[in-house]
């Protein structure tokens, strides 16, 4: 009993808060790209914050419910419909056995989170239900959903429909987007002028933007400080001896197009990085559509920690509002 996939949508995966602890062997943390919206969706339907939900990208699936359930959709502006009747976002609503949940066209953002009472009860692998598609691991059979899949639901508490979050507690992506970044790692490899331009330029999200990483185009190519390449690094000035990549790290292969690694990150490689997007802004990346103008904003560690505390405060207020 649970949910039958009639149409899978563009790239719908089961995600929870992720699978920490295995990055040292190349298995990334995975989990929802916009964890704030994922958490809010769960709390709206009375689930624990880390229950498994569906992460829906750009275009929604069509799901037939084989049992009664309470659901909520948060994140992107992707309006849900029950048997064709539009339902509110960031608000819990009932779906009866036999009804079909579908979605209208995307009006903003990139990823919607669909939580259902009890959570999606796929097997727990290495402590998480999240899908890591590159490694065919976790989620529903290690992959995005396909037509005909059936997803079981866990036991959930009965919650009222109509639980909702006020506008102030809903995430809205900015235009242009601003990603706060702590410079570091191999920042010293580029010239001072290139460093200034990197923050001054407005970049655009490239079509190559997924759970592994987001690529940005349209800024000035970086100029490197000359050096003789170290043994084992490779001949391009953007090469380093293969090293670990932090989540949120900004690598710039060839010095041309920055790539910000996200929750399905490749865990390491041979490209230099100019810094790392701060933890508080990782949610926002998951809501960026291709072509969104984006600026990188230089911050200090103190500012990064203040932003982190502020995000935690929002999560606290969401939980308090729904308790």
């Amino acid at each position, binding site marked *: 009993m649970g949910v039958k996939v009639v149409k899978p949508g563009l790239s719908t995966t089961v995600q929870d808060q992720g699978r920490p602890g295995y990055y040292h062997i*190349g298995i990334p943390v995975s989990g929802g790209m916009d964890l704030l919206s994922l958490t809010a969706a769960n709390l709206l339907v009375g689930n624990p914050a880390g229950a498994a939900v569906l992460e829906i990208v750009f275009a929604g699936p069509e799901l037939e419910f084989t049992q009664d359930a309470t659901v909520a959709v948060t994140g992107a502006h992707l309006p849900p419909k029950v048997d064709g009747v539009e339902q509110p976002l960031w608000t819990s609503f009932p779906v009866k056995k036999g009804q079909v949940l579908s979605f209208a066209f995307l009006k903003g953002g990139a990823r919607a989170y669909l939580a259902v009472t009890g959570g999606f009860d796929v097997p727990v692998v290495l402590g998480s239900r999240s899908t890591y598609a590159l490694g065919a691991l976790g989620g529903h059979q290690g992959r995005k959903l396909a037509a005909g899949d059936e997803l079981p639901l866990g036991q959930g508490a009965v919650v009222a429909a109509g639980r909702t979050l006020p506008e102030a507690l809903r995430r809205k992506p900015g235009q242009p987007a601003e990603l706060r970044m*702590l410079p570091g790692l191999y920042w010293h490899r580029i010239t001072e002028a290139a460093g200034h331009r990197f923050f001054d330029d407005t970049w655009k999200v490239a079509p190559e933007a997924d759970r592994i990483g987001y690529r940005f185009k349209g800024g000035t190519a970086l100029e490197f400080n000359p050096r003789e390449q170290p043994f*084992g690094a490779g001949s391009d000035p953007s090469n380093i001896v293969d090293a670990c990549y932090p989540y949120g790290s900004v690598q710039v292969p060839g010095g041309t197009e920055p790539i910000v690694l996200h929750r399905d990150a490749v865990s390491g490689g041979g490209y230099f990085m100019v810094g790392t997007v701060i933890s508080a802004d990782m949610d926002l990346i998951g809501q960026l559509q291709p072509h969104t103008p984006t600026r990188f904003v230089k911050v200090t*560690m103190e500012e990064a920690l203040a932003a*982190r505390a502020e995000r935690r405060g929002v999560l606290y207020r969401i939980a308090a509002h729904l308790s």
Partner: protein
Amino acid sequence: MKTRYSFGGDEHIFVECDEEMSLEAFFKGMSITTALKEANIKGVTEICPANASFQVRFDPDVIAPDAMLAELKRLEAAAQSAPSVLDTRIIEVPVLYNDPWTHETLMKFRERHQDPTSTDIEYTARINGLDGIDGFIKAHSGAPWFVSMVGFVAGLPFLYQMVDRSRQIQSPKYLRPRTDTPRLTVGHGGCFACIYSVRGAGGYQMFGITPMPIYDPNQTTPYLRDFMCLFKPGDIVKWKPVDRAEYDHIVAEVDAGRWSPRIAPVTFSLAEFQKDIDASNRRIMEALDGR
């Protein structure tokens, strides 16, 4: 060799043991990350050794970034005075060099290669002054390799040969990455070998293929039942050249759930290695005898 620390955002510390690759830099990273694991510091969530660097992920709500940095510097100082000895294991990995499957793939992507008129193994043998394919196989399988990093994708080992720099095999990556690489390809880029744990894109030269699965998310392969990835940083690998008949035999045995790799515990001493590389390697490889 100067250690360089940098914060990777508010959740990571990135530590470069040296700009260039060396066994000493790798070993320094292993010593500090091993000590860090044993120190069991609250708030540390990931410890990732790499080739000549390592990375720590931490929760800044539990341990402040500056406190985390201070802990690492303290461990670095302690690791410097500790004897450079590593208790690890040696794993024998059968390889069919110059196999038909990587050959078919490399012919498909010839225009992306530095030398479209020869194969990856012929090209690498030539630019390293080795005596053809046979000379290459001898050099590649003649001395053991350290797993200096596991990553990029799940379970993929990077390996660094335990020989002095003049004997390191070096090759560039493809001019443009391939869109396909057979699963279990034995590859090479820069001074590093790798085994592709899953099929996919890749830029390393392709020399052969192993019949031995190294990543199994379903955990049905007997020796991957306890854990889905075979390799961890610090493992030592000995390549064993096999012919097509033996390759086919191992594949059949793996499929029947009857095959396991030869693995033996070994102790590696950096001082012993630096004194006499070949003698140290012989002792390490002899651990496999009778297994």
